[in-house]
């Protein structure tokens, strides 16, 4: 994650982009994007990790593809074209997973296909990839993807520990303390608690002058 090997671009530096994606503009906790998988898949750390990596790969590949061809996309059809690009990458990853990692695929199959509709990727392409050159776009995509992965793993750990008494399959507690957290309802509560916690941390760090998290998610879909 150091910027030493990369010539300094006019856009924000690579390190700053990465940290931005993970903390300041974390897609789940701050921007409230792509919540569907955040609740659905995070019943265990492993599930969250796998889907997070898949999204990371799609995000980076899509960002890079759009940055490469951004000048040839007609503005009026840019959303459908972004969607096509994302759909192609998602389908490819879907097929690769099914062929080479069948057990993994059995668990996260439907959600991998849904990556196409993830607002996080489209919004990033719209805001960044279509306007910035290749290298900063790569780091922005990487940062956002890592932020998403981080969020999924944190939520997964929270739910698996409280709901299943284990982390990544290793039992830490003798029984399941609060099975509720593995249920969908518990997923919503987990995110509510974690989001509030991140807000609290943000407020403390910036001395009480924090802004509220991004617009209820509506602005970004």
């Amino acid at each position: 994650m150091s910027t030493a090997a990369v010539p300094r671009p006019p856009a924000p530096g690579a390190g700053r982009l990465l940290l931005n994606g993970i903390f300041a503009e974390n897609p789940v906790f701050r921007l409230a994007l792509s919540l569907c998988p955040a609740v659905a898949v995070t019943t265990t750390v492993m599930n969250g990790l796998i889907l997070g990596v898949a999204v990371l790969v799609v995000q980076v590949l899509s960002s890079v593809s759009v940055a490469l061809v951004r000048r040839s996309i007609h503005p009026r059809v840019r959303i459908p074209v972004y969607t096509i690009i994302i759909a192609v990458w998602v389908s490819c990853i879907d097929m690769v997973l099914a062929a080479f990692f069948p057990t993994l695929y059995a668990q996260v199959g439907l959600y991998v296909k849904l990556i196409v509709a993830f607002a996080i990727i489209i919004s990033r392409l719209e805001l960044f990839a279509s306007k910035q050159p290749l290298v900063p776009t790569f780091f922005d995509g990487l940062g956002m993807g890592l932020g998403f992965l981080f969020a999924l793993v944190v939520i997964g750990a929270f739910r698996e520990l409280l709901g299943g008494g284990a982390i990544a399959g290793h039992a830490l507690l003798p029984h399941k303390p609060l099975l509720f957290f593995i249920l969908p309802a518990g997923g919503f509560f987990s995110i509510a608690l974690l989001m509030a916690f991140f807000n609290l941390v943000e407020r403390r760090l910036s001395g009480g002058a924090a802004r509220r998290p991004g617009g209820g998610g509506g602005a970004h879909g």
Partner: protein
Amino acid sequence: MNRPTAAPAPRGEGRPLGEILRIAGSVTLYCALGGAILGATYVATNRYQEVARAASEHRSIAQLLRLGPDASVVEIRQYLDPARDQVVYRAAPRGAETGTELTFALSGQLLGRARAGLRGGEAEEGLKPLGRIFVAMQGDSTAGFVIEGETRGYKNVVRFFVALDAAFDILGVRVIEHEEDPGLGAEIATPWFQGQYFGRTAEGASTLDVTKDPMPEDWRAALLELQRLPPAQWRSRYGGLLERESVQPVYAVTGATISSRALTMGVRSTVNRFRYRWSLVSPLLGEKP
């Protein structure tokens, strides 16, 4: 998501028609490119997908029946021909290209017997798959059977393997595919739940039922050991418990009665159907045509 606002001004001076054509053209180009990439990936990965699936199935079968390396497996594919009201069985040793084909009327009467190829084409022939049976032979004797079954779970279809020994007692059940909720319905795919089917006799299997009563703690502890110990050792340690519990109904997962019931009824009907069909087919498969 940001709403796409109208473009500030159309690029170039083009007439509206030219504009639309250019837009349509570029989108079509992207679609075509995308389709081409997908096609290439599909062709490249499809073969691996088949190979991966077959390999994982064989691993499951070998584990369920505890097969040694010198075991051989005969795969029997069962099909229903709804147009002619017939049932077709195609049997071949694993990996072989040709095998024996048996055709029965629905009443059980044998209609025909032939040597046939195994590769595909079932959909064109109008045949509906009824599942597969794997017969494992160790040396000269039958090591056991693994039957593929399907049932409707809480969310979607649940596919599973049932393993029987030569006397048709259950050696194990393994869920292959499901979409049940993690932590709830998905618990039917765990070793401790599936262990409840182990050791039940064929008669017991044909009257399987489910209860919502909680599982006794000693039985739960024993089931958790089932994976770690070889069956003979497990039986000697927990034989008494097995005797007590194998006549009890299956204990449902707390909060997932529907999934537990689906799998249990699925196992039950799969075993019943297998015993009938095997009685028809086995005398004919032993002989060389």
